[in-house]
């Protein structure tokens, strides 16, 4: 009987694809690049306040829910936050703080729901909506401290409503992408 030895990190797997850890690292880097690319597109879209984004840069993060291990997923979230700050030049501003709070709050909650309930019980639309709400709530809380003070309660309703709409739209796109994508299916955990 012949055995198929497990490749070490950095080695090629028998299929010709890189081995587990190396493949995860490349997936993180690739999805991180898509976050940066979408951030530059998002940067060009006019917005009333710099931290009020549509959130299209979260698409790769949502896809990563099913394809990366937990440490890789949070590494991707960190790449998104820092990379976005480097691309848009906002590393020293409150925007970085808003982005970090929003991204990590939504990433943690989306991961908890998706892995806790399972893909069969919660789709991307539900996950995306909850993620957008978590992100926007954390940003409203920060806006109350740093920008608007008590008036943040006036900004909160339209901001949260916009979050529901964008969360549904991004979730719908992810659902359609996951349905058709050969890349996603090959990496599904």
């Amino acid at each position, binding site marked *: 009987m012949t055995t198929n030895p497990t490749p070490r990190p950095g080695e090629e797997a028998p299929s010709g694809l890189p081995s587990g850890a190396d493949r995860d690292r*490349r997936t993180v880097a690739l999805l*991180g690049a898509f976050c*940066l690319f979408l951030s530059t597109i998002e940067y060009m879209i006019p917005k009333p306040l710099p931290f009020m984004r549509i959130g299209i840069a979260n698409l790769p993060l949502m896809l990563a829910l099913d394809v990366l291990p937990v440490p890789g997923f949070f590494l991707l979230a960190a790449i998104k936050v820092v990379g976005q700050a480097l691309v848009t030049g906002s*590393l020293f501003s409150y925007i970085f703080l808003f982005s970090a709070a929003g991204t990590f709050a939504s990433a943690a909650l989306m991961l908890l729901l998706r892995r806790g309930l399972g893909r069969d019980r919660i789709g991307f639309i539900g996950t995306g909506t909850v993620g957008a709400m978590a992100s926007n709530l954390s940003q409203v809380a920060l806006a109350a401290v740093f920008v608007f003070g008590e008036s943040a309660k006036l900004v909160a309703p339209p901001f949260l409503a916009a979050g529901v709409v964008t969360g549904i739209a991004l979730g719908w796109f992810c659902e359609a992408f996951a349905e058709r994508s*050969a890349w996603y299916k090959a990496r599904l955990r």
Partner: protein
Amino acid sequence: MSARDETAAGSDRRAKARAVRAERAARAAERRGRRKDAALRLFSSRALFLAGIAAMPAFLFNPSLESRAAQFFYFWALVVAVGKRNSAVLTLAMSAGIVAFNLFVPYGAVLATLGPFPITEGALRSGLEKALTLEGLILLSRATIRSDLRLPGRFGAVIGESFRYFELISEKKGMVDRKDPIGGIDALMVALSDAPLPAAADGPEKIRRPAVGILVLAAAVAGAWAFAFAPGLAAALTRG
């Protein structure tokens, strides 16, 4: 002059004005490009980053609204100096929004009234302070953060790989067809996953830079701190 002649003359004037505006924009872009190149030759992205860190507390912990406003304009000039663009319209619109929202919670002396709505001194100062802080930090970031900044460690290595993939995506974005974005993005992801990632090139970080760049940055940071200390110095001198 007939109506047709007047129309023709009018459209001619508009075309000339458009050409003048386009020429002005092209000249401004050229000047900006020259400043950007000069900044790239003088400052490494790491030195700029450190200068930003050194200047940030001078702005963030400055208690005087007036000198913070002066620092805001100083940072605006720094952004221009490194060859980046500022948008006065966006900055004003954003600041006006922040000030307006802060005015909804009135406190302090009433300065004026807009119908039933009082404009109070405390709310106005608080709004201005918040708008200046938010916008000032954005300007400082824009002046001192460059996308070729390399971060150390494993995280820095992975984010570096992401930037290399980012360049590949920017080159191959034509693969994404508007009629079938999902199919295009998927094909792009498959292609990039299968292709070997190009090795890191010697970017602008590897260029040897003159020491004068460090001196210029040190002077820029000293300028930011001078604005922070100016009101205290002025008060001390007045008392003296």
